[in-house]
């Protein structure tokens, strides 16, 4: 956009401040509110799938119990731990950015990224395991217990839809982390302006919360009933 000098007397141009904001506090609050409204849309986006999940879990409790035997609880549990650690390092990264410690910021961002990749790798292992067992819904779907063939296919469809959409959000998050690391390396952030780090921190915590609900719903419940 042609950089039109704002006719209105603006405070000396703070780092990263856009023309149409009065001061950086207003800009920061706007970004935070905008991020939370975006997370609202994500809650409703996953909410649609949780709606489908609750309906089918209510319709076919027995079929659900039998499919959850094929869910690898150890990988799931470990993955939950991995994501909680990544949330922890992310929050430390935001704190480091707030204090202006560039080296700490980059190291925490890198460790968050690494944990994210570990999660995705384990997720790949699980998907491969399902691929080998022919549990991928679609023409090639097979299921041991003929009683629940159709219902199992629906529940595996929901499993792949929810965890797949979650993994997609993880991949997008990893991409964002990489850009953050690049920006931090070129010290674009300072103690006064580190909004992108904060926003992507909120996004990352949201993705972690989705997994916090996915893990018990898909892996744990139904073991016993």
């Amino acid at each position, binding site marked *: 956009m042609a950089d039109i000098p704002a006719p209105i007397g603006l405070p000396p141009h703070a780092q990263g401040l856009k023309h149409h904001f009065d001061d950086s506090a207003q800009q920061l609050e706007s970004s935070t509110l905008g991020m939370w*409204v975006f997370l609202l849309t994500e809650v409703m*986006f996953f909410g649609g799938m949780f709606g489908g999940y609750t309906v089918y879990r209510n319709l*076919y409790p027995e079929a659900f119990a039998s499919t959850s035997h094929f869910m690898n609880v150890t990988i799931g549990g470990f993955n939950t731990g991995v994501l909680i650690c990544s949330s922890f390092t992310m929050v430390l990264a935001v704190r480091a950015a707030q204090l202006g410690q560039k080296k700490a910021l980059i190291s925490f961002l890198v460790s968050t990224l690494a944990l994210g990749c570990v999660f995705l790798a384990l997720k790949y292992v699980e998907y491969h395991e399902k691929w080998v067992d022919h549990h991928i819904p679609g023409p090639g*779907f097979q299921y041991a217990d003929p009683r629940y063939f159709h219902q199992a296919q629906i529940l595996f*469809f929901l499993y792949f839809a929810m965890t797949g959409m979650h993994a997609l959000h993880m991949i997008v998050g990893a991409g964002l982390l990489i850009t953050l690391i690049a920006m931090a390396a070129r010290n674009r952030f300072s103690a006064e302006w580190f909004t992108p780090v904060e926003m992507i921190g909120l996004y990352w915590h949201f993705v972690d919360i989705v997994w916090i609900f996915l893990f018990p719903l898909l892996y744990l419940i139904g073991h016993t009933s």
Partner: protein
Amino acid sequence: MSTTLSPPPRIEPRPNYLNVDYGWRSWLFTTDHKRIALLYLFSITAFFFVGGIFAVMMRINLLQPEGVFGHDTYNKLFTMHGIIMVFFFLVPSIPATLGNFLIPPMIGARDLAFPRINLLSWYIYIVGGVVALTAVVRGGVDTGWTFYAPFSTTYSNTHVLLAAIGIFVAGFSSILTGLNFIVTVHKMRAPGMTWSRLPLFVWGHYATSLIQVLGTPVIAITLVLLGLERILHAGIFDPNDGGDPVLFQHLFWFYSHPAVYIMILPGMAVMSEIVACFSRKAIFGYGFVAFSSVAIAVLGFLVWGHHLFVAGQSMYASMVFSFLSFVVAVPSAIKVFNWTATMYKGSVSFETPMLYAFGFIGLFTIGGLTGLFLATMAIDVHVTDTYFVIAHFHYVMVGGMVMAYMGGLHFWFPKITGRLYPENWGRLAAMIVFVGFNLTFFPQFILGYQGMPRRYASYPPEFQTLHVMSTAGASVLAVGYIIPLIYMTWAWKYGPISPQNPWNAKGLEWEKSPTPPPTFNFDTQPIVTEPAYNYSGTGEEVEIG
């Protein structure tokens, strides 16, 4: 024609958002909310006329009981008419054009909170539109804009996936617009612009944005599940494989009913401005009108079950949804009564925007009341899926929202273009639209109660008379829409230069911001001291907080 065609005087126009920069780069990479509003205006008008052509072809087909184009073509016509009108015209039109253009100047801001996201939302809208149009060009979709499973997932062999992707993408444009408005209204109001001084236009769009942000993601995920089901046939919506098609209807209508409030609330927002300005009086019951917008937004999410009364929903759930559908009718009624009361002891003038406002009040009342028929379970069993429903939602959408959109375009035409449109042509077009609309859709109420089902390419001969009357009305309506297209494009270049406040209306966008506005809307940051709609100049506060 009263205005003589004198050439406009050659004074050097002061720099404004239109002449500050030229070339396609200044349009396609602009982050100025006003230019983005114009980009939206041109693309939405194009989609409106494409959808309109499909509508006229449908009406031609229905001239004869056995149909003109054949069943398959007609099925594709009504599907594409529905998809283009709902997702590419009704949902984005007022928020993306008038809302985008006017909310910043109305609250005294220099721009929306996230200008680049605003441009991104236009690009996403265009990408979604192009994908949907390729579905049209490559052979169309024949599932109806409601995509009911299991027909859409297993039995239809048309481009359902392509259309679903187009709508999925366009949904994000709606989300981003809503997000932008919410943050702008919260964070970027001028000093002194408290919530009780906000123009009702901004209240209406704030409520609309809440629905856009909270509803649209659910249809996004529903279309993803529909697409996956169409590829994998896993059976989530397919009864032969254990799925339940009624679940699709639940997820679909969870968004699609609030979507009709996304369409009507901006229309009501424009109405409040027009009625106040042309009665020269503050809106009667400002607090009630503002709160009823938000009430409609919230209650709008609780009523979607009235689309499933005959679809196999349990009786108890139907009863709950029926009751809530009556509750949501109350705020709309309050608004209509308040506009009428605003004219009491006012000084009413009859320019074009006000004619559209009269049309809106009349037709939206009929549309709203026929909604009560559909909320009453026993009558809904008889009239749902018939032409009664078609008449109802066209009365609310075309009679309500499009009337308000035309009124708003005329009301803010001087502010947007700096020119005046020809007043008598405007009045003529408004009357033609009113007559043509009633002639088109009132017979459909009678058709509906006689039992003529919707989406029929051929029908029993005894319904023909009413269908012919409806088709005649449709051609009058089409003429009524083409006239403004002509004189507005003419006036944009050759219309007389408009003073800063031609209607001497209240509101920051008229009083404080020049016409047409500069890139940052104001020369000096406005400070708000008086309440909204302070036409009488007494300036006593209206406390709603």
